[in-house]
């Protein structure tokens, strides 16, 4: 059928009820869900705490002001969560499949999962004792301590560094080998010094927190929108900058270019 989202799903509310006053049994399946079972292909990488640059005075108005903040150390998944990982989670947990899980390109096992809402991304991380990164943590991971422009440094993007789109916003191209999403970790030269892959490009990544008009202290959160970071396969180089902020309705689960990764507190 053409692009009409005609399918509505009625959640089985009865399936989600817990008997009041008792905790669900800790079944082997539930125990399995609570460990991070994807460490082999998507290990957790340590990002050292300390002070680091956050925001930018040379970007959009909502990226300003640039400042130096302090963030505690944390662990971050090396790659965006993949279709294979999300499918395994959905099968065990009963979560709704990602919207493009059957797409011939976007739904491939090693491509980042797309077509999931903010809440669905958050729920995935929570299942394994993880969480979505804050905007500050995400920038620390992508920009290092000195606020590099992109995940790899300040040099402009190239086909060997990231999966992104045309030079003038916004649209896809295949100059980097992929017209849409790419298998995670395809651009070794685009990784951060710690080895995080696809922090710039491939798919946008949900981060926790509300969108604000800028980073000034006391800036009012607009609770209609969440924040996405990192740019995607159809973004221009401007949107690939690690300080760029995309405000988006968190309930939206039809984006073909939006995914996520998870983090874990080092104290856990």
């Amino acid at each position: 059928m053409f692009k009409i989202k005609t399918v509505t799903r009625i959640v089985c509310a009865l399936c989600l009820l817990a008997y009041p006053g008792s905790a669900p049994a800790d079944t082997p399946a539930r125990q399995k869900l609570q460990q991070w079972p994807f460490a082999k292909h998507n290990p957790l990488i340590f990002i050292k705490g300390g002070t680091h640059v956050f925001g930018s005075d040379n970007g959009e108005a909502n990226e300003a002001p640039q400042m130096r903040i302090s963030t505690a150390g944390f662990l971050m998944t090396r790659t965006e969560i993949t279709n294979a990982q999300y499918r395994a989670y959905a099968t065990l947990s009963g979560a709704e499949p990602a919207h493009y899980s059957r797409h011939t390109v976007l739904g491939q096992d090693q491509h980042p999962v797309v077509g999931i809402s903010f809440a669905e991304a958050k729920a995935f991380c929570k299942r394994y004792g993880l969480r979505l990164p804050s905007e500050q943590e995400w920038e620390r991971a992508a920009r290092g301590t000195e606020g590099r422009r992109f995940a790899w440094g300040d040099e402009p993007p190239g086909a060997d560094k990231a999966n992104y789109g045309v030079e003038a916003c916004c649209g896809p191209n295949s100059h980097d080998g992929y017209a849409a999403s790419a298998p995670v970790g395809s651009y070794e030269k685009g990784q951060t010094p710690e080895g995080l892959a696809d922090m710039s490009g491939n798919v946008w990544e949900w981060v926790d927190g509300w969108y604000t008009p800028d980073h000034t202290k006391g800036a009012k959160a607009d609770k209609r929108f969440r924040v996405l970071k990192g740019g995607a396969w159809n973004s221009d180089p401007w949107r690939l900058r690690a300080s760029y902020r995309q405000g988006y309705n968190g309930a939206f689960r039809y984006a073909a270019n939006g995914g996520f990764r998870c983090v874990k507190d080092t104290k856990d």
Partner: protein
Amino acid sequence: MLGHTPAQAQSLTPEGAKAFTLDVIETPLQMPSGLDWHGNDLIATDLATGRVVEITGGIARNIMTPLPFGMDVMNEPTGPYKVAVYNEKLYITQGWQDVDRGEGPLDHALLARPLLGPDHDVNVISQDFWNPYDLARSDRAWLVVDASKNALVKLEDGARQVEEVFVFPRLERSNGAFESLSPTAFPQGKAYEVDAVPTGIAVHDSRVFVSLFGGFPYVEGGGALVLLNLEENRKTDGKAQGYSVVTSGLNAPIDVEVDASGRLLVLEMGRYDLEKGFLPESGQLLALDRDSGKKEVLAQGLFLPVTLATNPDGRIAIAQMAGPLLILTPRATGKGED
């Protein structure tokens, strides 16, 4: 699997109730899509099973082997979308293949089969479509909406290749429609374009009416009904010059028909919510004045309605993808009724 709305949700408006009575027909169809009259009976297709059935007194009887069906790459149902009864034959638009199998000989095609014939007697008229949707008869040809191409194509009788009649240009939308989606992707003050997405087609007196659904995010009032005059408005290459807008401000118009009296009928799928999808019970059946474009709501509370079928005796049938079939029957008028 779609849930079915309670039958009581659908109703006639006061204007509709003056002219019609409403019957609700529960059938075993899970996702009714195509619909047409065959005398007093209805022929229907089911996207959930590929069935093509004849419905008599609420009983659905298979009249041919089920056609391919499933979910396509965009996670939307595909299969036998629409059916038209013409010269004692069924004409079926079969969608592109589902994601679980390779392309087959019946995919993205116009199929034909005698109404009364052997079960295997399905003729592939043409596969020269991307994703054929609604169809209408015009002269000695079929006009078919190829929705994924945003185009109207024509298949002459006896031909295997279609000719492109008109490609609907993208529709311009103001930022206001996208405000609820993103303040950064759609900043204020800019206009944006969406796909036209032609859906239903009806032909009357050589005039071709097409409903334009309007692409995502299916803004409220973002749909339109347009008129293509293929005779008066033809370019030297045979394609239509453009269209005139009969009416706009429609909520996801999915089908159009002309009733027995020549009045335009438009089926609205309803209002769209970013989180919930198309809101249940927000679909409507409208009657339009062809000259003034004035709209009158006849039925409301419809749940994902997709197809209208008009009978020469004035009855109107509606298929709902997540609800029962509905039949509007004209009230008796005239002599003998005081």
